[in-house]
């Protein structure tokens, strides 16, 4: 359950941001969670309220944007969603156009988990 550890890291970062900006608390936070980052949005949301209770993020609105893993077929150039293809093909994604199993990731962002922006409150 490392989403717990992830929330504690977010809290730490926000404490620093609040201090740097003379804010008393963070009222809103937007996270970008990559599909290939290993962090699960669902658990983050479930644990969020209790995980931020009593911290600088207490009561903050949480907005999560999921960053999809988009790949490009090495053979025909078709771009498609890695996870959608995995779901449709027994976890063995392939090009929906030519069924090739060779593809390249187009966006490294989907491996990351980012604090995009926060709303600091005086």
């Amino acid at each position, binding site marked *: *359950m*490392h989403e*717990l550890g992830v929330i*504690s890291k977010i*809290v*730490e970062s926000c404490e620093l941001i609040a201090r740097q900006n003379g804010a008393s608390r963070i009222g809103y936070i937007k996270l970008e969670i990559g*599909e*290939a*980052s*290993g962090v*699960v949005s669902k*658990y983050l949301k*479930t*644990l969020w309220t*209790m*995980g931020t209770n009593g911290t600088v993020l207490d009561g903050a609105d949480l907005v999560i944007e999921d960053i999809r893993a988009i790949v490009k077929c090495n053979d025909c150039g078709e771009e498609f969603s890695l*996870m959608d293809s*995995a*779901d449709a093909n*027994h*976890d*063995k994604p392939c090009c929906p156009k030519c069924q090739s199993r060779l593809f390249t990731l187009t966006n490294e962002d989907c491996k990351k988990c980012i604090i995009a922006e926060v709303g600091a409150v005086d």
Partner: protein
Amino acid sequence: MMDEVKIIKLKESVLEDNNQDAQLLRDTLRSQGTCLLNLMSSPGSGKTTTLLALNKAFAGRLRWGVMEADIDSAVDANTMLEAGVPTVQLHTGGMCHLDADMTRQGIRALGLENAELIVLENIGNLVCPAEFDTGAAINMTILSVPEGDDKPAKYPLMYETCDMLVVNKIDTLPIFNFDKKRMEQCARARNPEIEIFYISAKTGEGVQELADALVRKVKEWNAK
């Protein structure tokens, strides 16, 4: 960093939600006459090889299927299918465990009507899976001889949670220092009721006894 008490409280609340969900799933499966077995272990213990060996030993006595959640499956869903076992690969996206909700989705995806046994091959990890009730009727863990006899002492929750402990790769006992007695003492200290089986999925030794025990348990469970 969160303090220890808070971490424990947080986990309790998440687990509580999941526990209720798991109980619902268990009741639904019982009314359908399907026994769900949650198979856990560390990576490389031989979960899939064991399943293939069990399939042969079941000899058609059970209508069963497999949900592959372990990304670390040396034998993929296709190979299980080739062996004639209905199988579905769950898409886990790097998670370190499965819960009741994901299990439910997997069962739906498997779509096996009148299944007597569904085996959930959980993610290769001794820490996280033990904490999450998947709604299974039977929890089984595989410990392989090369890993050592101290795993029950080091990962107590896993062994507390399991009904059955299968010790695999016994064909390698001559080359590893595996103290059976000590391992059993550790496991039983945490869980006096745990049933222990010794097998080699590779040579087939002990597999028939395990298969027979499972068939018996499944039929008993479904008859209730």
